[in-house]
């Protein structure tokens, strides 16, 4: 289990306990956090689960999946700390992770 903080573009914070094995995207969707669309259901085909990972956390996450950067090219305003939240699997090591949600997904 990991405590993950999702911060909406407007600043609204959501602190959620997400079970190990779920993705950061699923943690958001299952808890009705606005700002993550996840149109393709986590199959890395839509880039609407895009998040900005808090700078100090970015290097600590497992590496990007093959093809994730290709998909991020198609996200809304990608930056250096962009990730697809459906490709980040939650584990104890992610306790305290903070992700910022983009202004919009599409």
């Amino acid at each position, binding site marked *: 289990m990991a405590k993950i903080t999702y911060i909406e573009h407007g600043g609204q914070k959501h602190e959620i306990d997400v079970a190990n094995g779920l993705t950061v995207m699923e943690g958001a969707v299952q808890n009705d956090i606005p700002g993550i669309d996840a*149109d393709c259901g986590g*199959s890395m*085909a*839509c880039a609407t689960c895009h998040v900005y990972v808090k700078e100090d956390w970015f290097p600590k996450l497992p590496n990007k999946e093959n093809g994730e950067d290709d998909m991020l*090219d*198609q996200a*809304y305003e990608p930056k250096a700390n962009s990730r697809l939240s459906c490709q980040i699997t939650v584990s104890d090591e992610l306790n305290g992770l903070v992700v910022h949600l983009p202004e919009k997904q*599409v």
Partner: protein
Amino acid sequence: MIKTDALIIGAGPTGLFCAHQLGIIGLKCEIVDNLDKIGGQCIELYPDKPIYDIPAIPQCTGEELTNNLIEQIKPFNINFHLSDRVQEIKKEKENWRVKTLKGKEFLTPNIVIAGGVGSFEPRKFPTKSTDKFDGKTVLYSIKDKTIFKDKSVVIFGGGDSALDWAIELSKSSKVTLIHRRDEFRGAQSSVDKVKELQKNNKLEIFTKYSMKDVKGNGKLESVEIKDDDGNSKLISADYVLGFFGLIMQLGPILDWGLNIDKKTIPVNTETFETNKQGIFAIGDICTYPGKLKLILSGFHEGALAARGCFKYARPDEKLRFEFTTTSKAVQNRLGLKND
């Protein structure tokens, strides 16, 4: 104006199989899809990926599934209206009058929405300033490449469309290619080609830059690009092209007075009718307790929605339950010769 028993919105697997089921019970239908090809997500997002959970087909790719569905509905000679979007619907007595973006009109007692997660549309620049040039000098697809002759064209993107157009247009335009990172995801041969053109000063490339703003009073003059550290650069431009792939947007479907729950449409599971009489929703776009966003569920939903359409298309007839193996009537509809 086209009269038909049912209009299907969406040529994904669900819409295609629903067309089959309509044909089996003797109803005519027309299919509209915003994509320029048939197959929905299967053909747009994963044509080469194998699917393992289509009943009785141990493995097939998105493209194979689509081709098989097209083959299966051949006997019914169904009309497809591709590269067009259903925009407006209006009730007229027993019928719905349906209008598309390109101005086609349909009159039908039944609309079957098999719209998936929405219609596929090009992803646009996030900047607002690009809006006022949209469709004129800021473009997301190319219909007539001659307009770029001897002009300055700034192309954004790192995939095949961006690379292919950069190569093509560099023959007769001043091309600048901009991509947000060093790596391009297009075919290696195209990547090599643009790098070679860059070496020979046939085009310019800026990587690790993205769109900041477009400038121009009435007429587009330049593009401002920025890197991750906030440094920016101004590039003169007559045209700006963006190739960021496709996104799925519910768009007009939201305006039809249908109940919507988190981008999906609630339906009754007997006929898959929505809160509006004669409008059905099937596949990824519908929701009900236990809904699975799987192709196999879409097939089942399409079969029941087709039966639901029958009572509005043939109010004076009774629908008979028949097997394809044994019914002469069904086999006639399939164009099979009976002895």
